[in-house]
């Protein structure tokens, strides 16, 4: 969204939110809702729903019209995300495409790449996965070992990636590989758009803590990648990706604070469906207040960041602040919410069953929130080094 070049249209404050809300209320079916214990929409249904969201103006909001976007501003993006967050909508299947690959392509892609790849992301024709992390190289890219070797027929890629969310359902991989030797450290890194159907790619699913099969290992075995699939020049692509990552850290999943708010409302409402459970909830009113305060603070971070971006300011390392704040506050909340649900009476109604199932999932998934997209420790390192400028030697 920060890759936006110009705002082509705009709405009156609140109007875009109202439109988004109306669409969600009409189109979010029970099967798609994440707050029901029993059913789960199929992947195909989720993909169709996500494509429909784009048509309705809920995604690709700030992308230029010629690349399939809606040409609107961050303000509309924020309004729509508020409504997305407040509803029990499923998480995006193609978040890597929309939050990472898209903005990078917009920054360093050739025009033909933009015209080809970007609209397909929004239309859900191409789902993307991210090929950055490797066993032994998480936050530390110096240790990156996947190699791309230049040959007469293009690049030959060998190596192994891990934590590649959704690789098994993706059409494209945003691959980071080393073209030089390992001694080059941060140099000689190249970004590619690799079709997942390329011969030599093997995908193995990793089951995550909550039992979902969302992560994969991806093996590249003499995979040939065409010259035209390079994203940017050597090192340029990765430099852009780094910039995009720090901005995206601040602006993506902007709905998080409202989703957090809606989880609080869900728990309270579920507890209020049963008198015994409501008595239990009363013992947690201080924690509920703290969670709600955290939600408001998080909104403060997000809204300030949007205002600064609209004023043309750089976000830089400040992108770490909302990520850090959200992940820790939400993790605390998830612990507490899960504790409450384990106290639900055994003969409670469906509302309690739904809430218990949801908050169990949220609790387990929350353990990863302080790890992915830069661990808490990495965020704190960034703040101490790049915001506080704390010295390490006299």
């Amino acid at each position, binding site marked *: 969204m920060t890759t936006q070049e110009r705002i082509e249209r705009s709405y009156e404050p609140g109007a875009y939110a109202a439109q988004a809300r109306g669409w969600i209320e009409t189109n979010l079916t029970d099967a798609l809702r994440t707050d029901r214990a029993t059913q789960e929409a199929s992947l195909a249904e989720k993909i169709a729903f996500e494509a429909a969201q784009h048509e309705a103006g809920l995604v690709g909001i700030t992308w230029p019209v010629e690349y399939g976007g809606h040409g609107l501003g961050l303000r509309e993006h924020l309004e729509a995300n508020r409504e997305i967050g407040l509803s*029990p909508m499923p998480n995006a299947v193609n978040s890597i495409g929309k939050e990472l690959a898209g903005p990078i392509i917009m920054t360093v892609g050739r025009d033909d790449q933009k015209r080809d790849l970007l609209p397909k992301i929004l239309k859900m024709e191409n789902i993307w996965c991210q090929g950055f992390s490797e066993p032994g190289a998480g936050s530390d890219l110096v240790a990156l070992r996947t190699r791309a070797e230049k040959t007469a027929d293009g690049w030959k890629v060998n190596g192994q990636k891990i934590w590649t969310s959704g690789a098994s359902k993706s059409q494209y991989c945003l691959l980071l590989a080393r073209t030089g030797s390992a001694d080059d450290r941060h140099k000689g890194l190249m970004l590619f758009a690799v079709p997942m159907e390329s011969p030599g790619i093997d995908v193995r699913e990793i089951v995550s803590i909550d039992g979902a099969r969302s992560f994969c290992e991806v093996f590249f075995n003499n995979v040939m990648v065409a010259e035209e699939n390079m994203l940017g020049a050597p090192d340029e692509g990765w430099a852009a990706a780094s910039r995009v990552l720090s901005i995206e850290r601040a602006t993506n999943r902007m709905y998080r604070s409202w989703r957090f708010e*809606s989880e609080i409302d869900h728990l309270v409402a579920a507890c209020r469906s049963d008198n015994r459970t409501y008595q239990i909830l009363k013992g947690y009113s201080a924690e*509920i207040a703290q969670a*709600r305060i955290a939600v408001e603070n998080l909104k403060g971070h997000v*809204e300030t960041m949007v205002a600064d971006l609209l004023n043309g300011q750089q976000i830089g390392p400040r992108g770490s602040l909302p990520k850090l*704040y959200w992940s820790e506050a939400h993790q605390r909340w998830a612990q507490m919410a899960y504790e409450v649900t384990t106290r639900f009476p055994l003969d409670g109604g469906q509302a309690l069953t739904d809430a218990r199932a949801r908050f169990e999932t949220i609790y387990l998934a929350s353990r990863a929130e302080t790890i992915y997209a830069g661990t808490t420790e990495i965020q*704190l390192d960034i703040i101490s080094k790049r915001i*506080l400028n704390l010295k390490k030697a006299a």
Partner: protein
Amino acid sequence: MDFDLDPKEFEDTARAVMEACAEAAPPARARLLAEAGLIGVAAPETIGGLGLPLDFAVPVVAAAGEGLLGFPLMEAMLVARALAEFDAAEAEAVITGETTVTIAWQGVAEDGVVGAAPMGETVDRVVIFRADGSAVLARIGATIAPRRGATLDIETPEARFVLTGQLDGIELSVDAVETLCSDAMVLRSAFVRGSAEKCLALAVEYAQDRSQFGKPLSANQVIRHRLSRDKLATETMRNALARALTEVPGGDVHLAREACWLATARAGIAVAESAIQVFGGMGFTWEVPLHRHLRQMRTQAQAGGVAEKTEALGQRLIGASTNAWYGEIANVV
């Protein structure tokens, strides 16, 4: 009204005045503050104020928190604004520093005793709340007698008032008191932010200057992370304050202010406590000003009713279910 002004421009002025105040005797501080126009920053021009929005009072009060100002500045600002519609002359006297005022934040007149009034022993008048939500600005004297109580704050020692007679003075309406209390949450947050940012700045400086085991304290990852968390806390205060001053579509300004104050109050205390830990043995001496900041922030937290307001917010949140998606499943009877 010149809205091209930027609140940040008031920061430097305010800081300079606070430094002058630190050198001055307490009674002279009102004059210094008034001369710089700081008491009336956000008061209407009709009573001698600058007529600027509350945003402009924020850096001024933050500078007071930072500078350990020994004067109830926030109270004077709030009273001047509230008085404008009830007694313009008295409001002007507050802005010029001629009349000094405080507010008894704890208790209501009906209790017979009210308290948490900063510098209640040395000012001229005190705002006393009533159980019905209105208030009176009363002259301090025989029937409204100040008593020094337990006071943690050293800069602006708190007093309580024992009320033994009729409560006479300028009446403030329920609406005016509501606005005053809402604005107080904003200004108090600003004060604490200033105080907390000062603590953090002192800790950062000390960590970089102080060498231990052959390297600066700031080389220790736990110290770095501690200071980073404190920085997150003060930035959170900044952003929450910005939010508490802005109407957002779908937003709730009252909740934003309340959340801002409740979070800021607790976080400010934590930042001061953290800074004391960074200072180690030096941290708990009288000479390092950290304990003064801790004291004034704790006092603000108490006067601003953090514990009570948090409990009330919790009760409110579980007391109703109005969410469009979940309202229907709530059927507690």
